[in-house]
């Protein structure tokens, strides 16, 4: 019967409340002293930028192609350099092969779920102008231009190789413009020009519109050769 409390003879020593309290207080003081001991302040170090810096890419000037003696090879090289603009997301996003634009550098489907409509400016009940206006609007980050709309379906570029795009823009039946007009469109059109001034955190197209136009002009002047 060992578990029975024995009576009287072998009484356990009993602690009073005070020592327990004292021990607890001592433990708290010790822990606080360790935690609150004077320490050097953490050094400020900069956080990584929440948005990657926008990379400004340059175009090679027309003069850089002068060393290519063969005019056909030069024409091809000029177009391939201009292709860095043509195939840039700022241009491709509004040259979709479906009725729906894409957006961002990742060229993901546009949200909201808009469609080109009869004139490229959106469906009559959800026009592009529901959100897009004459200028980029910084408070909401929504880009804008007076001519904001999709390229006609005949000028769909997404999913095509640079060679296919090249033949397409030279084909008046699909491009609905001759070479003069094509050059004018690429060199002067303000919606094309938006690609270099996209606002917000959008990466602009490489170079400038003038440099791009010079490449296109030199390409046309050298016989407008297309990649395979």
């Amino acid at each position: 019967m060992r578990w029975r409390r024995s009576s009287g003879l072998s009484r356990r020593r009993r602690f009073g409340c005070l020592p327990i309290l004292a021990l607890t207080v001592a433990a708290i003081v010790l822990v606080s002293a360790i935690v609150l001991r004077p320490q050097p302040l953490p050094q400020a170090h900069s956080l990584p930028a929440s948005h990657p810096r926008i990379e400004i890419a340059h175009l090679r000037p027309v003069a850089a192609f002068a060393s290519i003696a063969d005019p056909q090879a030069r024409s091809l090289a000029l177009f391939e350099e201009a292709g860095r603009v043509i195939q840039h997301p700022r241009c491709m996003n509004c040259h979709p092969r479906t009725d729906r634009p894409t957006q961002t550098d990742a060229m993901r489907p546009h949200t909201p779920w808009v469609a080109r409509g009869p004139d490229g400016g959106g469906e009559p009940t959800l026009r592009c102008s529901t959100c897009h206006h004459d200028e980029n609007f910084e408070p909401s980050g929504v880009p804008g231009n007076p001519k904001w709309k999709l390229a006609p379906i005949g000028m769909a570029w997404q999913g095509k190789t640079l060679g296919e795009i090249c033949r397409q823009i030279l084909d008046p039946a699909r491009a609905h413009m001759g070479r003069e007009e094509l050059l004018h469109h690429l060199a002067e059109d303000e919606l094309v020009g938006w690609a270099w001034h996209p606002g917000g955190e959008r990466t602009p197209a490489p170079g400038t519109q003038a440099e791009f136009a010079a490449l296109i002009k030199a390409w046309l002047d050298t016989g407008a050769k297309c990649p395979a």
Partner: protein
Amino acid sequence: MPYSLSVNGQVHSIDEDGQTPLLWVLRDTLKLTGTKYGCGVAQCGACTVHVDGQPMRSCSLALEAVASAQIVTIEAVEGAETKAIQDAWIARDVPQCGFCQSGQVMSAVALLRAIPAPTDDDVDIAMSGNICRCATYNRIRAAIHDAAGVLGSGRS
């Protein structure tokens, strides 16, 4: 110089920066808080108002761009389509939390003004810019068809 802004038929003198989003002017300056701030980046449609009759996202519209326009908000939108939409919304008990609903109503009214008897596809196109966190989409679609039916029977 202050802008004079026509909202719900009243002209207000607004002394704010021209780049201030219209939504801020409506809610903070004019205290017309029926128009909601959902995302501020033209993604949700909660801030939809009519600008010269067109539904637009007021969070993405500069004050200076609408200074000569007629703006109508949920507080004052009216007419046969509005009445039909309001009745159908109540009958179907469309809203859940309600936050998106003033934008939904503004888009739905504009839809019925443009297409009096919309198909499901028409509804999808017109309403796809109005997001509802409570997913009341089925009731919205049904209520739009109900409202179109009421308007149609009134015409025939």
